[in-house]
């Protein structure tokens, strides 16, 4: 995962409330067993009609080609827990998503995939939508260290992110590795923690 420090990119406005993960990546693309290559399926049913790009969908407009900052509306990423959603967004090229609110699981999944989800107030988001619509090639810059979003026309907003998640993005942390450093603690927890059953081993197990 590419470490995230600061970033500047073209913004694209997706003016829809409650964008769910079924819309971000429809289920017919969830049967693959890889983690990569989902960008081509991003927003598939909105982006394509019988395999051809739909001109009425914002991501297909010329002026937004190469966009890497997604402006979105409230409750973005609601629905299923599929991590295929951030995989598709990041594979397509998005590094930042700005919205007034996100669904929990999606929000959490973003940090594991090098995407920074930023919550700004409704008013700020409205303003950014307006500027993106008005100014061709409108760009936003994000500085993770100081937790700020700015544009070159005087916009500046501070956003919240927990120190842990910040580090996760900045350093590209191996979360599992860092938890495994607590292996002793986990083991001693297990010794006194009671669970009333044991699930049998797979009888076809090879190890």
């Amino acid at each position, binding site marked *: 995962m590419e470490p995230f420090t600061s970033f500047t990119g073209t913004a694209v406005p997706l003016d*829809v*409330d*409650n964008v*769910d993960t*079924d*819309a971000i990546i*429809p*289920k017919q693309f*969830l*049967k*693959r*067993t*890889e*983690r990569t290559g989902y960008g081509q399926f991003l927003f598939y*049913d909105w982006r394509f009609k019988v395999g051809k790009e739909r001109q009425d969908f914002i991501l297909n407009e010329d002026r937004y080609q190469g966009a890497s900052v997604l402006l979105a509306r*409230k*409750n973005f990423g*609601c*629905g*299923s*827990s*599929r*991590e295929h959603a951030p995989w598709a967004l990041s594979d397509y090229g998005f590094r930042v998503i700005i919205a007034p*609110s*996100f*669904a*929990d*699981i999606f929000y*959490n*999944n973003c940090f*594991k*995939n090098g995407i920074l989800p930023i919550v700004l107030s409704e008013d700020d988001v409205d303003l950014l939508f307006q500027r993106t619509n008005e100014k061709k090639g409108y760009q936003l810059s994000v500085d993770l260290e100081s937790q700020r979003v700015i544009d070159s026309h005087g916009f500046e907003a501070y956003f919240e992110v*927990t*120190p*842990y998640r910040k580090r996760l993005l900045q350093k590209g942390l191996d*979360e*599992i*590795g860092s*938890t*495994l450093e*607590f*292996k002793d*603690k*986990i083991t001693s*927890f*297990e010794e006194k*923690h*009671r*669970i*009333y*059953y*044991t*699930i*049998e*081993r*797979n009888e*076809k*197990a*090879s*190890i």
Partner: protein
Amino acid sequence: MGKTLYDKVYDRHVVYQGEDQPSILYIDLHLIHEVTSPQAFEGLRMNNRVVSRPDRTLATMDHSIPTTDRLLPFRDEVAKKQVKTLEENCREFGIQLFDLQSEKQGIVHVIAPELGLTQPGQTIVCGDSHTSTHGAFGALAFGIGTSEVEHVLATQTLKQDKAKTLAINITGELPKGTSAKDLILSIIGKYGHDYATGHVIEYRGEVIQNLTMEERMTVCNMSIEMGGRAGLIQPDEVTFNYLKDKQYVPKGEQWEEALSEWRLLYTDDDAVFDQTVEFDASEVVPQVTWGTNPGQGAGITDVVPSPENLPITQRKAAEKALQYMGLQSGTPFDSIKLDKVFIGSCTNSRIEDLRKAAKIVSGYRVADSLHALVVPGSQTVKRQAEKEGLDQVFIKAGFDWRESGCSMCLGMNEDVVLEGERCASTSNRNFEGRQGKGARTHLVSPEMAAAAAIKGHFVDVRNWVTKEREEVGS
């Protein structure tokens, strides 16, 4: 200050609480299925890691499998590969798998409770957002992404900050002819699709105490449709009676010990929730959704709303939804004609759901204009239904009677709603394209779905005339 049920379960599972990172939370039960796990296993292999506790992990296949004859080969090559990958992964890492040949196979959220794996006070995770279902037992259960599936496989823990808490106190009495599904749809309709974001919900009050375990599961199942991280219900005698003698539940002396531990799982009187709301169940009428999120619903006696009459913040979404759904404002719900009816999914595919639907269907025939199917939640449910002769009621009426799986809830297999078709579905999501590209989904209870299948359009199930069924089966 006292503790909420959530606090109690959470605190019991904290392995490590650091200053600079979220708590490391121990996970008691990890459920796995074919769609969100392959990349997690791949990650383990790439880093030379093993599964920490195969004995706390259970796999099944449910999402992308066919629900027709199990002996026929898969027609979908990609789905077949996914299922095969799960088989190989479970073999390699020693994880118990209830595959298509297993008599215990079923939707992951149906099988864990019926096997007695879901127990009060546990932490349960699965790479599926409807894991909230298990909260009906007073277990802290939530959906996770694939990176977290890998984390749990490798460490049997999860890093998680504490959520906020929301109490929904449900007062009054659920009126005759309405169900747990109508209750939860009404709650989501009232508060909205994202109301509980960042919160763990505790459903409280007499109405909840009077629900059966299966009804409680229907309620908790849909917590995520309100944005909730999890849903919880305090375990009580109803819970314990349901669990007693289930396969994985302790027996004898251990059962008594478990009981005394489980009886401590309640919210203290002086505990404080971050938010508390009251909901009066007496007003509930059978629900039908008209939009493309579960919060866009109304009572069967209503008409399709006009966006102008909705709060300004909901208008645009409502217009878009009505357009997608092909609905005119002002249309009475009971005049909306259907092409498909789906009875199934982890929300409503348990034995009580099938009994209730069969009671409506018995003695009637499915309308000629539509295709209706019943997909039991598990092989256990299917066997039980067949023992009671419910399958015959459905088949005689003209329903398809299928093998267990997620099926048309998300249409990853061949059970899809076609473009422009309208479906009454007992599942939990009516998102655009959820049941198939261009599919129009109306969420309803099993009773409402069954009645709609007979009439070909929605009807108020409170006025349904049931016919006596001749005794069939043993």
